[in-house]
Every structure is written in structure tokens, then in C-alpha cells.
């Protein structure tokens, strides 16, 4: 992914805006291709993958659509790839773009981006559109690679109804 860029700069430095965007795009590409196993390796050990129901709450004490640590991410990926989950086998096709990036926080170790995700989903003659606000906290791992430390996908209609979502946002 961003390894070669990282090798050229200080491996201990915070990810740059450009590096972070390249990382996010590569992640989006993995997800649309259902390439979930490498996706699991993009995370810090304590990283949290969150799809909230409500905005502006303390997610740990609220009901979320997803609140995954590494163990739950692994279980989720296993499920989605197992072929035994009716909602993900056959899978929906998705096409997503992520853009409108701004840096919301930056320190010596991490960069936090806020962006917009536009995702179209297609299955059984249904086309659905799932826009979301999205935020990524990205850190540089020990070997210079970038890692996700937190990803929050807030669907535009998070507190309203969804249809079943048989893939990763």
C-alpha cells in the first residue's frame, strides 16, 4: 500500500494527508472487491470499527450497528466469507467512492480524516444508495505501514431504518 512512501520518509513520523488518502482509497478498493482477509491486517490491535446508530454519543455505551474490536472483525470476516450466510452469499455488489477529506486532528503519531462515502449496492434487481459521513484515525505501525486505529461510518440515515447489509461499509 503506502509502504514505499513510508520507507522514503521517517518511519516514525505521523502519516501525511496524501499518504492517508492513498491508504483510505486502497482500503475502499479492498472492500469493494470483498478482499476481506488483507483488510483485517490494516488494523491496530486496539482498533475499533464502528457503524453508529446515533450521532454525537459515547459509542461504547450506546447501541451501534457495528462496534467491532479485532476479535469481532475476524469473526465478521469469517462469517461474510463462509458461504453459509444467506445475506452475503451470493454477496451484493458494491461500488464506493470516498472523498471530501479534511484533517480533523493530527499529532506525532496519527492523522484523523473526515470524509464522505458514496456507496451503491446492487442485489436481486435492487439498487440501493448508502451515503455516509466517515472518519478515520490512521497511525503508522511499527514497520512503517499505515494502520487504521478507528473507522466510524455514520450512514446518512443511521437512526432510521436500513435494509440488511451483507458486506463491510
Amino acid at each position, binding site marked *: 500500500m503506502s509502504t514505499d512512501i513510508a520507507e522514503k520518509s521517517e518511519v516514525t513520523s505521523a502519516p501525511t494527508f496524501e499518504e492517508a488518502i492513498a491508504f483510505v482509497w486502497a482500503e475502499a478498493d479492498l472492500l469493494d472487491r470483498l478482499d476481506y482477509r488483507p483488510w483485517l491486517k490494516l488494523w491496530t490491535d486496539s482498533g475499533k470499527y464502528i457503524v453508529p446508530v446515533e450521532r454525537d454519543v459515547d459509542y461504547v455505551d450506546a447501541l*451501534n*450497528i457495528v462496534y467491532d474490536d479485532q476479535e469481532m472483525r475476524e469473526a*465478521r470476516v*469469517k462469517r461474510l466469507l463462509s458461504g453459509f450466510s444467506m445475506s452475503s452469499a451470493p454477496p451484493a455488489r458494491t461500488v464506493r467512492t470516498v472523498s471530501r477529506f479534511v484533517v480533523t486532528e493530527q499529532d506525532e503519531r496519527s492523522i484523523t480524516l473526515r470524509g464522505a462515502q458514496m456507496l451503491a449496492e446492487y442485489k436481486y434487481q435492487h439498487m440501493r444508495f448508502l451515503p455516509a459521513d466517515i472518519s478515520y484515525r490512521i497511525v503508522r505501525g511499527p514497520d512503517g505501514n499505515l494502520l487504521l486505529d478507528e473507522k466510524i461510518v455514520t450512514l446518512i440515515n443511521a*437512526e432510521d431504518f436500513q435494509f*440488511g*447489509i451483507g458486506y463491510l461499509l
Partner: protein
Amino acid sequence: METTTIDGAVVSDYADLVRDDRGHTSLYKDAKIFDEEMQRIFRNTWVWVAHASDVPTKNTFKTSWVGDQPVIVTRDKAGQVHVLLNRCRHRAASVCEKKKGKASVFVCPYHGWSYDVDGKLRKVPHAKGYEEGFDTADYPLVSLRVEEYNGLIFATFKQDIEPLEEFLGAARKWIDLFMKQGAGFGVKTLGEHKFRFPGNWKIQLENTTDAYHFPIVHKTFLDSLDEETENVFDVLGQGGWVEDLGNGHSVMVMIPDLIDLDDNLDAPIPDRFADLARELAEEGHCDADVRRIVRAVGGTGFNLNLFPNVACSMAFFRVLRPVSVDETEITHVAIGMDGGPVAGNRARLRLHEHFQGPMGFGTPDDAEGWERVQRGAQAGDDLWILLNRGVDAPEGVAEPGHNAGDVSAETGMRAAYQMWKRMMAA
């Protein structure tokens, strides 16, 4: 009714569409039947609208539905709950579009008529434009009859209906058992997952008493559990049963050990709750409290299906709302302990997220299955939906280990459809 035929003969009574062991395919897809259901069922019985903790204090409210009718559930200064049609008496604008909140008055945004939380029309702006005989007392928000049982709030359009307690009948015992998840603190709603599927509401009504699908549809959920927990969720293998409770209600016991959460408190704490038990002990809870809380956090082992729109399902409320003949909205309400330990409620939230909701390990597969039913029902207009699995227990009463009315019997579905038939018959 003109359109539905059975074996080429035009059906003259909806009752003909339900037999003791089957229901007709048109029940899923005839829009006229759906419209009649909204009238004959949803305007004629007790319909669940809220849990008491959704409107915890005076002047709190929540918007909800009675069938296809939007309502506001309010609590007044005296603590009394009201269920009001969300429709201004002037020219029909909805008076509240928030999901929940606090309000001591509802002001219609169109011309400013204002209503008290009990529905009384308080004031109309520029009142002198009305003729002298105009009396605000004639135009309150339409108020439904409301009753509550153990925190479950129901409303009805039918003013002369039997009392709620009578309607619930034998289901009350199971509601009381279910509410033991409050672990002595009382039950509180913690949040909601909402999702829809393109299919008829009765497909979901059936599913709450369908243990038969569990090991197949939820294989990937079971695979995500540790071995001990997976054994707990072996729902077909523990001598459970399904019982018709009358009035369309039924209970499906999947894990007999988890019927009464006050029982077996001396049993070893399951591994998956070891961290929680330690955390609670460190917070200073005595051993007996830790055991009670941990057992409550794990939830019950049964689904109580209350006709027509709510289930107390293991550890949450499952609420259905018919949207159209082929679309249904479902709300899974997470519940926890009201004022109980934060760690316990956190554990409840994570357990709920694991199975429920649009990205849970269970719900999307259920929703997909229900959608497939609706899609499949497009074929075979003259065919029937089979509800004949299992035999009824003698006298309608089953006991743990009883060899009849086993957990995968379609007894609960038959109960619901018999109630449907009673209410829909000409």
C-alpha cells in the same frame, strides 16, 4: 376480495384462506387483504406502542405506530401515558416529527394550533377568525385507549375492547419472567435497530416462533460463538417446546434452563461472562448480586410472541410494523437494567449488536430469508403455506421434555393464524 381464488373458486370469506394446518399464499401478496388487515386487526386489538422507559418522566414523548396510523406516546404531569394520533385537527399536519424527546406542548407548525400532552387543544392563533360557537374542546388530538402491563404499553382504537390483562391472558406469566432481565433494577430500553425487508408482515410474525430455521439460517452466528455458548444456542436439542397461549399469542422455549432467571444462580458462571463477573466483583457487588446480574445479562431462553406486533424475544423486544403488503419495518429494541451497573449494560449492548440489526450476525440472514419467501410467493397462486409441522401438546400444555409440541413445531404460527382468522372472518 374479488381477486382471490382457491382452486379456481372465488373466495367469499377471508376465513377460507386459513385452515388448521396451512395458510393461503394470497395472505402474503394481496393488497386488498393488507388494507383489510389494517382495519380489522390493527384497529381492533391491543397494539404495542412503547416501553414505559421510553417515556420515563413527565412531559417526555416518543412517536410510534398503531398499524398504519402514526401516533405520539406521551406522559403527562401526573405520570399518565397518552397515545395520540399524530395529526392536527385543523388541516391534518403532523404535529411531531421527532423520534423522542421532552415537550410540555405540541405546536402544529402549519398554523400554530397548540396541544397539551394529553391531547387537549390549548390555543389557536388569531382565534377571532372563528365563529362564536367554535369550541377548542371539540378538537383535541384523537386519543386512543391505553393500558400497560409490566412496562409494556399498548394502545387500541377499540374503546370497548377487553382489558389488556385479559387480552394477554396466559402470556402475562411469560412477560413477568422476561422482565427478570432487569435483575431487580427494572428494565430500560437502551437503543433501537431498525430495518426493513421487502415482504409481508406475517412472514416476520411467523419467524419469531420458528426454531426450525435457527441452526440453518444462523449457522454463521453459531460458528462465531465459543463452544460453551454454541451449546447453549443448540435450540433444537434441549427439550424445548412451543405453547399456544390463546388470542394469537405463543411462547417458544428454546433454552429451558433460561426460563426463570432467578433459578440456578449457583451454577458456574459461563466463561464468556468471566470478565464481566470479575469487573462487577471489583466494583464491590457481592457474589449473589454478581451472579444475579450476570445471569440477567445473558437474557432468557424463550420467545414470547404477542399478536399482532411485538415479541419479547430472548433478550430484546422485536416490534413489527406493516408498511405495505410487501414491505415491513422491524425494530429490535435493546434492553438493559435501569440504573444497573454500566459494565452489565455495556455487555448487553455488545451481545445485542452481535446478533441483531442490519449488520448483525443473525438479522441480515433472517431478513434475506423473509425476502426470499416474498419473492418465492410470486409463483404458485393456488399454493398454500404449510404450517403443519409438529403436533400440539395435549390440552395445549407442554412441559419440558414433553414429547409433543416440540420446539420446532409450527404451533405458534398456527396460533397466530387462528387469531388472524377470527379477526378477519366476515
